[in-house]
């Protein structure tokens, strides 16, 4: 007796999907086993790897991170302010492999061969890919400020990567005398985490107010305005009136040079000798983006605004701070949101499907004090002008919001952190 087995059924389905070419809806046959390599285990890369597996568990997803533990920039200012310890901002990749089936490799990518679709690592390994996602983050423009290079960052830390630089700056703050001077020098736009330098000034001020109240923070800014500025300045007037002084670029804030040996900063003809100097240098895409040939003249990676595929090298997607993502800021939340969109675009692309809608969000909290938070948010859509915020939505919190709202936003800031890191690593 003949029986209809799986083979016959599939044959019938094959006929059905052939018919789809003539207007009958297609039956989805996901391409299984496509090899996706994700380079960079931060907000963009870790999220993208996890969501690739969530969209299609049959994919082979390899995440290559050059660190065994990821230390976040978000909440590193709370470490500097003495409110959190390093372990709070330190995360492992265990669940990405054990729960989600991502192959996690700890190594440094040295070569991207886009024509052979292969990458090589410092550890001597090579990985072939069908699609490559790079989420490498930022690099620094060393010597853009005269005298400020990698060696100088050992005495004047940038602390713009979470890790040993965070620890170094915290130690310096602990060691400085009461009555000392802290200089924070933020760069011009664009740079990673636009409100970050001002949250940093706030939380260092919180620490000094409690422990070294005669001290002072001088912000020597390359810019004339900054993210969430009215909310920060209102709160500074309230909490730290004599502690924080902000000098805009056009009024003496621009650095001429630094002398790291003598802890001296020269800005617009003035000389400032300080106890602690935090230089946040001008930035560019991380070095792998340059060696892979993905950057433009300004040092960032132009990408298709829908799929985040490089417009320079096909088959390679660039997400996060290294990419040029329309009006989205270079933030952890933006990178995470881009990681999910990129994952969906890759999966849909392999299946010959369309994602139908392109939508991103950025939500960012800053702490001005442990119980005082402020926020900015935006919903982004793909328009004919690229990725743009939805008009009438988003923006910063109201200036005259009640104190209760600031308290809630401080509570939510930590909730945000727990959620987004669990969404990456949990």
């Amino acid at each position, binding site marked *: *007796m*003949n*029986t*209809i087995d799986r083979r*016959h*059924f599939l044959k*019938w*389905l094959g006929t*059905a999907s052939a018919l789809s070419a003539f207007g*009958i*809806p*297609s*039956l*989805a046959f996901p391409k299984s086993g496509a090899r996706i390599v994700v380079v960079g285990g931060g907000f963009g890369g870790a999220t993208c790897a996890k*969501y690739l597996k969530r*969209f299609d568990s049959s994919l082979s997803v390899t995440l290559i991170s050059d660190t065994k533990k990821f230390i976040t920039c978000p909440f590193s200012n709370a470490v500097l302010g003495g409110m959190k310890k390093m372990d709070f901002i330190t995360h492992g990749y265990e669940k990405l492999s054990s729960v989600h089936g991502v192959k996690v490799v700890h190594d440094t990518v040295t070569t991207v061969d886009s024509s052979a679709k292969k990458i090589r690592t410092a550890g001597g390994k090579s990985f072939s890919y069908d699609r490559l996602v790079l989420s490498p983050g930022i690099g620094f423009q060393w010597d853009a400020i005269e005298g400020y290079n990698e060696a100088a960052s050992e005495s004047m830390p940038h602390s713009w990567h979470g890790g040993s630089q965070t620890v170094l700056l915290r130690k310096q703050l602990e060691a400085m005398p009461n009555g000392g001077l802290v200089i924070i020098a933020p760069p011009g736009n664009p740079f990673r985490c636009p409100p970050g330098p001002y949250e940093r000034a706030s939380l260092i001020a919180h620490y000094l107010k409690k422990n070294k109240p005669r001290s002072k923070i001088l912000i020597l800014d390359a810019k004339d305005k900054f993210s969430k500025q009215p909310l920060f300045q209102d709160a500074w007037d309230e909490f730290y009136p004599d502690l924080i002084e902000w000098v805009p670029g056009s009024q003496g804030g621009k650095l001429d040079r630094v002398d790291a040996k003598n802890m001296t900063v020269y800005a617009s003809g003035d000389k400032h000798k300080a106890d602690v100097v935090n230089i946040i240098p001008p930035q560019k895409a991380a070095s792998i983006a340059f060696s892979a040939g993905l950057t433009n003249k300004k040092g960032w990676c132009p990408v298709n605004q829908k799929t985040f595929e490089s417009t320079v090298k096909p088959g390679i997607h660039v997400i996060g701070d290294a990419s040029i993502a329309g009006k989205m800021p270079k933030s952890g*939340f933006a990178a*995470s*949101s881009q990681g*999910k*969109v990129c994952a*969906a675009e890759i999966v*849909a692309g392999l*299946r010959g*499907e*369309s*994602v*139908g*809608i*392109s*939508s*991103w*969000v950025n*939500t960012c909290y800053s702490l001005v004090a442990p119980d005082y938070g402020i*926020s900015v*948010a*935006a*919903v982004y859509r793909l328009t004919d002008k690229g990725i743009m915020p*939805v008009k*009438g*939505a*988003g*923006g910063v*919190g109201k200036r005259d919001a009640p104190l209760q*709202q600031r308290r*809630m*936003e401080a*509570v*939510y800031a*930590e*909730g*945000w*952190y*727990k*959620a*987004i890191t*669990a*969404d990456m690593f*949990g």
Partner: protein
Amino acid sequence: MKQKSLRITVVMSAAIFMWISGVGMAADYRPAMLANPCAGCHGTDGASPGSIPSIKGLPSSYLVSAMKAFKADKRKGTVMNRIAKGYTDEEIELMAKHFSSAK
């Protein structure tokens, strides 16, 4: 032979049912495309590990009314009034169904 034709009928019916009902058709990515960014604050699938409210598994009608109230500033919030204004009512419905049925 009788049994074979019966089996063919069953299989064909199942396939036709799949086609009509949409099972196995091209995936609709829109709910996930809209809802995934929410996980950055509300947790993966809306299950919050921290102080921000969980939205996973809540009734769709509740999520729709909450979002519409935030959008119209009829409900007080911190950041949600600003975010809800970024979505059409139809998109809010898609997102609400997504979180309501999240497993």
